[in-house]
C-alpha cells in the first residue's frame, strides 16, 4: 500500500536535541505504560470506567454530569497548543506527539535489529537470505510484541488493568476488550512502523494549520543562508573566505537525518516537524570543521535578519490571557464542586391533591446522586411556601458512595398559603460537612385563589 511513497531511512544522530527527544520519549511513553498500574485508595489511580460511567482520576471521581470539565480541559489543551506554537513552533510535533514518540521507539527497534541507516538500505535491497529473514523477523517480533503491549495498556485505562492481565493470562478476555486492544495495537503498528511521517504530511490537520500561529518572532528551526552560502565541499585546511565559500560544506547530513526527508536549507517547509535532528547533525559537522555551531539552529525570522525578537507580543498576550482565564475557571469550579446531584421530578399525573383539613399536597420524586466514594447522610428540607412540610420521607437520607437514591416525597401546605403556581426549593445538606449542600427548585401547585 505504501510503494508509491519512497521509504525514508532516517540516519541516527546524537546530540543535544537527540538527548532531549530521547528523554521526552522515555518519560511520555514510560508514563503511558506505567500509569494504569498505580493504585490510589485500593483502586486503580487512573481508570476511565466506561461500563460504570465513572472516571477515576486519583482521588477524584467524575460522572457524566461533569462533562463540562472535560470540555474545558480540552479547550485549555488546544489553547496551550496555540500558545506554544506561537512561542516556539512545532514543539508538540517534534517532542510530544504520540505519532513522533511511538515512531521514535519503532525506529530504535529497527536499529537494534537491522542496524544503521546504510545497513538498513543495503538489507532492503539485498535478496532474501537467512540473515535478512532473521533480522526482519526479529524486527517484526519486537514491533508486534510492543504493539500488543501498547493495545493492552490502552485498554487498561478503561478496564481495571490487573484484572485484565489475569484474564489475558487465562486467555479469557471479553470480546470488545479484545477488539479494542487489537485495534489500538494494530493502529500503533501501522502508524509507527510504516506510515510514520506520511501521517504528519497527509493526515494531520494540525500540521496544515499550525503556520497560522506562526509569525516573524516564532522560534523555528532554520538554516542561516547568509552564513552558509555559497555551499560547497572543501578540505578542512581551506579557508572558506579565500575559496569564496560559505560555511555549508554540503555534506547532506542534515537531509539524511531528517525523518520527513526534507532539506532544511530550502527554508521552512510544512513537512518539518521540528525534531531538531538537523541541528544536531549540522553542529557535529561544524565541530569537526572548527566552525562555530548554529549554521542550522533555533531562531526567529526577525533574528535571522538581525532585527530584534519580541517574545511579548499581542498574539502571545491574548493567548496567555485566555489560557489563564480558562485555567482559573476550571480550578475554581473543580475546587468548589459539590459531589452531589439533586434532581426533582414533579409528578405529572395530578396537579395537586386536596386532603381533609384544607391541606394541599403535591408529589415529587427526588433523585439524589452521591458522587463521593463514601456513603453520606443528608438532611432534607423544603422552603418557599409558608408552613410547607414533607411526608413519606424521614428527615435524613443516606446514599451509598457512588450511589443513586430515588425517593417519592409528598409536600404539604395549608390551603391559605398554597394558591396558584409557587416556586419551592428542595435542599440537601450533608450532616457531616456543611459545605456539601445543594438546592434545586420545583413548582408547588395549588387551587386558583
Amino acid at each position, binding site marked *: 500500500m505504501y510503494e508509491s511513497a519512497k521509504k525514508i531511512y532516517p540516519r541516527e544522530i546524537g546530540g543535544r536535541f537527540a538527548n532531549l527527544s530521547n528523554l521526552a520519549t522515555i518519560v511520555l511513553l514510560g508514563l503511558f505504560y506505567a500509569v494504569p498500574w498505580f493504585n490510589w485508595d485500593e483502586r486503580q489511580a487512573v481508570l476511565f470506567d*466506561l461500563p460504570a460511567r465513572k472516571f477515576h482520576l486519583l482521588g477524584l471521581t467524575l460522572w457524566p454530569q461533569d462533562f463540562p470539565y472535560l470540555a474545558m480541559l480540552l479547550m485549555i489543551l488546544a489553547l496551550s497548543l496555540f500558545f506554544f506554537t506561537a512561542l516556539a513552533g512545532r514543539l508538540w510535533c517534534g517532542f510530544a506527539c504520540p505519532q513522533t514518540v511511538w515512531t521514535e521507539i519503532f525506529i530504535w527497534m529497527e536499529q537494534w535489529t537491522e542496524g544503521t541507516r546504510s545497513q538498513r538500505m543495503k538489507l532492503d535491497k539485498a535478496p532474501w537470505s537467512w540473515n535478512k529473514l532473521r533480522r526482519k523477523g526479529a524486527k517484526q517480533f519486537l514491533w508486534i510484541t510492543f504493539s500488543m503491549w501498547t493495545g493492552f495498556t490502552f485498554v487498561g485505562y478503561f478496564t481495571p488493568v490487573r484484572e485484565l492481565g489475569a484474564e489475558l493470562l487465562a486467555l479469557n478476555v471479553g470480546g470488545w476488550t479484545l477488539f479494542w486492544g487489537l485495534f489500538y495495537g494494530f493502529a500503533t503498528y501501522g502508524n509507527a512502523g510504516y506510515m510514520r511521517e506520511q501521517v504528519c504530511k497527509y493526515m494531520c490537520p494540525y500540521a496544515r494549520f499550525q503556520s497560522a500561529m506562526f509569525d516573524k518572532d516564532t522560534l523555528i528551526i532554520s538554516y542561516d543562508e547568509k552564513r552558509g552560502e555559497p555551499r560547497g565541499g572543501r578540505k578542512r585546511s581551506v579557508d572558506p573566505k579565500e575559496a569564496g565559500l560559505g560555511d555549508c560544506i554540503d555534506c547532506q547530513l542534515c537531509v539524511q537525518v531528517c525523518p520527513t526527508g526534507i*532539506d532544511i536549507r530550502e527554508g521552512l517547509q510544512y513537512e518539518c516537524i521540528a525534531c531538531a535532528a538537523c541541528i544536531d547533525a549540522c553542529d557535529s559537522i561544524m565541530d569537526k570543521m572548527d566552525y562555530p555551531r548554529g549554521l542550522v539552529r533555533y531562531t526567529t525570522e526577525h533574528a535571522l535578519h538581525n532585527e530584534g525578537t519580541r517574545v511579548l507580543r499581542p498574539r502571545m498576550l491574548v493567548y496567555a490571557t485566555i489560557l489563564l482565564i480558562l485555567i482559573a475557571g476550571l480550578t475554581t469550579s473543580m475546587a468548589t464542586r459539590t459531589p452531589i446531584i439533586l434532581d426533582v421530578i414533579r409528578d405529572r399525573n395530578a396537579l395537586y391533591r386536596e386532603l381533609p383539613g384544607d391541606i394541599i399536597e403535591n408529589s415529587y420524586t427526588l433523585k439524589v446522586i452521591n458522587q463521593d466514594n463514601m456513603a453520606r447522610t443528608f438532611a432534607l428540607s423544603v422552603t418557599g411556601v409558608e408552613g410547607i412540610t414533607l411526608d413519606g420521607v424521614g428527615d435524613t437520607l443516606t446514599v451509598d458512595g457512588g450511589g443513586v437514591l430515588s425517593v417519592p416525597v409528598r409536600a404539604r401546605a395549608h390551603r391559605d398559603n398554597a394558591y396558584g403556581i409557587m416556586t419551592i426549593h428542595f435542599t440537601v445538606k450533608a450532616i457531616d460537612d456543611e459545605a456539601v449542600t445543594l438546592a434545586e427548585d420545583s413548582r408547588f401547585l395549588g387551587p386558583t385563589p
Partner: protein
Amino acid sequence: MISEEYSGAKQWSRDKQAVFTVVWISFLSAAIGTMVFFALFDPVDLFGIFDEDLEISRDAGYAAGFFFFWILCVLCSGVTAYLVRTAPKRNAKH
C-alpha cells in the same frame, strides 16, 4: 549531489491522500462525537427505547455508537471530497 536513494520522499497519490485523510479525520470526529453523545446518554437506556427486550451491554453500545458516527463521518466527508475533486473544471475563458 543528493544521493540516488535519497532524493527525498515521493508523494502519496492524490487518491490515497484523499482516502486516508477522509478515514482519519472521520475517526477523530467520530471519537469526539461519541464522547459528547455518551456523556449525555447512557447506551443502556437508549437502546431500551427501540426494543424493551433488547439487552445490550454498555461496551457494545459504545462500540456501536462509535462505528455509527465513524461511518456517518466517512460518508459525509468522503462524498464531499469526491464531489469537490470530480467537479467540472471552470473554464478560464468564459
